[in-house]
């Protein structure tokens, strides 16, 4: 019930394409769903986050789609660029646990020029 399952494990797209990364969770008590971007040798950086009271959130080229009934959420990267090549992690937390994040397994994205 504490798991967050992420797919695909790796993804290759051409520049300008729209990579989509998916996550699924089981615990309906989760109420905060962030996405992190991690470059080699760096710590995870918060990209965008959503709460279950909305179905979509956009920040620049990044969009989260959230499906509460299916317990799934996804990250879309519009007009992807080679500089977006990184590992992306979804996560989930329950506020009453003080924000302990449960992470997915990660998706290694490569954007080809």
């Amino acid at each position: 019930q504490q798991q967050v399952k992420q797919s695909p494990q790796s993804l290759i797209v051409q520049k300008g394409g729209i990579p989509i990364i998916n996550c699924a969770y089981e615990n309906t008590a989760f109420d905060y769903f962030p996405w992190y971007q991690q470059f080699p040798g760096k710590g995870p950086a918060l990209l965008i986050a959503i709460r279950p009271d909305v179905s979509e959130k956009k920040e620049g080229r990044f969009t989260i789609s959230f499906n509460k009934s299916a317990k799934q959420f996804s990250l879309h990267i519009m007009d992807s660029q080679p500089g977006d090549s990184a590992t992306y992690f979804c996560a989930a937390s329950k506020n009453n646990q003080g924000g302990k994040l449960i992470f997915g397994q990660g998706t290694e994205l490569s954007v080809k020029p």
Partner: protein
Amino acid sequence: EAGVVQSPRYKIIEKKQPVAFWCNPISGHNTLYWYRQNLGQGPELLIRYENEEAVDDSQLPKDRFSAERLKGVDSTLKIQPAELGDSAVYLCASSPGTAEQFFGPGTRLTVL
């Protein structure tokens, strides 16, 4: 605004040796987390502090791991003695009391 600072960035030790990691959170952030990230995996929480109090250490292997956050600012995570399986990246994160967590660059530990 300065981010979360961690040191050292890299550490190589022999098994059974002790090791310590240091973290300075973002100024004003009362909540501090230590996570461990194994190769090819997402981070996993080891311990969470609210000011100087450890409020969640259920995932900390207490036989060999210890942590402290004196004065509610900087924190130190210690492993004694280290085992081969402790090789990982140790990440510190801080939060201003909201859901957002901001991570430092991590310390990459290699145990030989």
